[in-house]
Structures are given as C-alpha cells and as structure tokens.
C-alpha cells in the first residue's frame, strides 16, 4: 500500500516533502550530516552568501530568550566563489533540492551574486534575503519599503537563471503589501518570516547582551506571529508561500501549511534537536494517515 503523498511543487520545482531548513541555521548541511541523513529533507536552504567573504558581527552574537533566541551573526559567509567550490561541491551527491540564500549590501551585490549562481546546475532555487536585521547596510533596507522591494525583486528576476524566492521581513506594518510588492516584481515565491528585531539587556552588568545591541528573535516564541503573517501573505498573493518561524514539530509545520504555506522551514529548533526536520516530516506523514488524507497538498491554505 502506498503511503500518503508528501510531495509539493513550488514555482515549478518538485520537492519530495515540504520540509526545508531555514537559512542560517544549517550552514550548507555538512555539520548536521554527521547527525542524520540530510538527503531526506525536502530541501536544504543554505546560509546566505554574498559576492565576497563577510566577517559578520563581533561576539557575543547569540543569546537565549524565553522560548527563543536572539542572534546577530551578521551574515558571516565565505563569499560566492568559495561557496560554489566547497559548499555546492559537498551538496553534489546529497539527494535533495538546494535553495541558495543570497545576501548583499547593494543592488549590484545581489545582482552579481544571483548572476553567478544562475549558471550552477546544483542550485534549484534562489532565496533572496532582503530581511536580515543584523547588517547595517543593505539587507533589511530592501525589505521594509514596498517600492524598494518591488525594484530589487524586478531587477533580480530579470537576470536570475533560477526561480526566485523573496524572503520577507516581519518587521513591517503591512505584510500583505510587501508580499504583493514581491509578486508584482516578478518573484516566483515568497518565504516568511525572517527574525523579529529584538534586544536583551544584562541587568547585572548594565550592558547589551549582544555586541550588535539588537538581534533577530527566532524560536517557538515567534511561531504565532509567523502563522498570522503567512496567512495574511498567502491571501494577498497567488505565488506560493514558504512558511517559517518557530517550527519545532509537525503541529507547528501543519499550522503554517493550513494557513497557506506550500513549504515549511525548520530553523533554530535544529539547535535543540538536530533531526527536528526529520521528526516534522514523519509527523506530517502520521497526521495524513491518521486523518485519511492522500496528499499534503490538500492541506495548503485549508483554513481560510
């Protein structure tokens, strides 16, 4: 007997299951391949890459908060050439889809990185990070104004050799407006939510805990915000939505799918349990069997 169908299609790309890693929490998969078979993931979404190596922020870069964590890594990465030579080479024989996250400080940065990755066979999709709250120039500045978001999306999509996902920031007043701007700019899909900007103060030392002062909040604490925003975004656009934010188990993932997400990503939960994404995949399968549902696709946006 065949089990339920977990496959989904996003912008013409077929995924064995809807569960991915959230950019920045999983490197390029190498470290976690020592814990479980990363080929079982629906997709690996890599940590953001830029045209040249980025150093990131001073330490402390991370802090724990109630049911979550703050990070201000600042997108440290080896640059796109090393990424292609080493990270993509590592992913060559991993049997899953690869979505490369791209970051930049200027429009030109994004364009040259997107162009460089467009010819790489191993890259299935590009996710554009216009929503990182931890770098001073660029990044989130492109993701908080609908006009600016439209422009950069438009310019990227004109040259991208791969389907483009625009990753949206939750640090906006109207997420539906941002989703529509990305769609109008030609995005093939959107993903949300990136982290919520937060701050933690050490009361005894009377200092900021993070060297960067502010950081991005992730973890179970932000999950209800993610569900709400995925719901609003999914109702504002026709392009597929990938949902993320505080997913720690299949229930959390199913909430996002029911709210309208075609795919879901597991982020900082991996730090708590390395194989969380596998638990989520198995849990979604069990749910489908328990409810006699043939395909996970029947659940996408089913609560409306």
């Amino acid at each position: 007997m065949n089990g339920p169908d977990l496959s989904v299609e996003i912008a013409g790309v077929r995924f064995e299951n809807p569960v991915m890693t959230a950019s920045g929490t999983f490197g390029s998969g190498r470290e976690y391949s020592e814990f479980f078979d990363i080929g079982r993931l629906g997709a690996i979404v890599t940590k953001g890459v830029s045209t040249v190596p980025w150093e990131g922020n001073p330490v402390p870069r991370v802090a724990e908060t109630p049911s979550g964590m703050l990070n201000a890594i600042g997108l440290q990465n080896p640059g796109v050439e090393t990424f292609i030579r080493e990270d993509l080479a590592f992913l060559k024989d991993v049997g899953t889809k690869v979505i490369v996250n791209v970051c930049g400080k200027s429009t030109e940065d994004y364009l040259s990185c997107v162009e460089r990755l467009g010819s790489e066979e191993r890259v299935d999709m590009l996710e554009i990070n216009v929503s990182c709250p931890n770098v001073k120039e660029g990044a989130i500045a492109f993701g908080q104004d609908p006009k600016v978001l439209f422009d950069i999306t438009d310019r990227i999509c004109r040259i991208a050799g791969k389907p483009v996902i625009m990753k949206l920031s939750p640090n906006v007043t109207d997420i539906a407006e941002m989703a529509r701007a990305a769609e109008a700019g030609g995005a093939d899909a959107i993903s949300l939510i990136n982290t919520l900007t937060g701050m933690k103060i050490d009361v005894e030392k009377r200092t900021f805990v993070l060297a960067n002062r502010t950081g991005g909040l992730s973890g179970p604490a932000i999950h209800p915000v993610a569900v709400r925003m995925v719901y609003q975004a999914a109702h504002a656009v026709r392009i597929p939505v990938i949902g993320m934010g505080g997913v720690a188990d299949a229930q959390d993932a199913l909430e996002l799918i029911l709210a309208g997400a075609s795919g879901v990503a597991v982020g900082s939960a991996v730090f708590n349990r390395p194989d969380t994404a596998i638990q989520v995949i198995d849990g979604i399968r069990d749910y489908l069997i328990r409810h006699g549902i043939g395909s996970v696709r029947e659940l996408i946006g089913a609560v409306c």
Partner: protein
Amino acid sequence: MAKTQSLMAIVEKEKLTEDIYRIKLKYGREAKIEDIIPGQFVGVYPPQKDKILPRPVSICDFEKEERLITLVFRTAGCGTRDIASLREGDELKVLGILGNGYDIEQLRGKKTALLGGGIGIPPMLYLAKKLSGIADVTCYMGYRDSHTFLLDDFKAASKTVTATEDGSIGVKGNVLDALQADAQKGTFPEALCACGPLPMLRAVQRFAAERDILCFLSLEERMACGVGACLGCVCRTVSEDEHFGVPLARVCTDGPVFEQSQVVLEW
C-alpha cells in the same frame, strides 16, 4: 554519522560550593563510547522546554569502563539552575562529544603547567589525569576565596598549587602570580595549558609569547548550535580561515582549545 544527541542518566550529583555542582552521567545502554580528549565538551540541555539551546560544559572526568562522564558547572542563569535542580536518576539530554581538545602528543615529556581559573578549573582535572606518566605536570588552580572545589581530586592527580584572590588559601593572587613565584624558584614550565576567564587567558597568552613557551588556551564563548553550523561562537585569529576567508575561527568546532599564537583575544 558520528555525532549524537542522547539521554544520559544522572547517577551522582553533588553540590561543591554555593554555585558549583558536580554531576556524573552514565551513557545509555545503546551508546557507542568513543575516547574523549581533555578539553572537549558536551552541550547540556536544560530540562525545561522553554530553553532551546545547549549549555557547553567541559568534560571534568571520563571513566570509559564505567561508562561515566563527570561534569562540573556553575549555575550562571536559570538554565544551569534548572540542570542543578535535577536529581539522581533523572535524565539529561546531551549533545556531543564536541570540539577539539588539548594536543597530548605535543606535551609528551614536557614540564607542563595546567592553569585553571574559576569555572575553567574542572577540565584541567581530566587533562592532569591523562597527562599522568606522559608529562611532568603541575596544576595551578585559582579561586576567588576559600570556597574551593575539586582540590582533593587535583592533589590526588598531580602536584597542585592553589591561588586565591583574597589570599585565604595558598598564594595570594591569581594562577599566574603562583606560576611566576615558582618560576623564580627555578621551576620554569616548558608548556602551558590554560582555561579560565578572558583576562586570565590574555595574561597567560602574553606570558607564553614573551618567553616563547608552547601554550594552549581553551576559550569560552556563547554558543547556539555547538557543531559549527551557526557561526555564533567565533573568535579572532591571526590568519584567515581556509574556508571562510576571514580571520575568525569557530570556538565550538575549531576549538575550544587553540595554540596561543593562533588567536587574538580582543575583538
């Protein structure tokens, strides 16, 4: 697939001082036990579900035959307090074994001083035991005051010199004061291994660099993943990382033990 996350049973728990605890953890029946190098650590998860990140704790002792590891930690926040509130028989979620330890081979035959300050003291016990018969070891242990811990264990394992900031026990001052007092008497070390607060590590680094002594430092930094994926816990290095192309190293996987000339202890 070499790394694991597993449940380990607390078989012994002891309060050593007001805020320092010792727990002995037993590997599960299925666990494959590999050798542990001194300086390596585990990630310990607080039992409460609202805490998501592992706490890095160095291995204080390892008894392979008995399938036991010993951890000594300070209750610094609510996560470590929750761990300390567990009882014998409870289980702890543990990630590891993690990180790179001390290079024992480089210390072979050398007159070696182990310097531990505060909560940097515990890993030196396992190192002292491992170096027994391999190197001529003296342990210099620095405490704030008379509330010492593990001293009897150190004395049983090697020559041990105690320093306290208030002078209540042993040499008045820090571990480096104690080391220099001995050096003046003619017992100069050929190698140093140090773990402790950043000001102490900086002083040890300077001491070793000025005298061109082989020196390993064990660094501490706030961590998230513990396995090298998130880049949360980096330190400054002298040369560029081969992969990342910037002068930074990951404390969790490139360290936590570094040769002193490789790291820059400023940001």
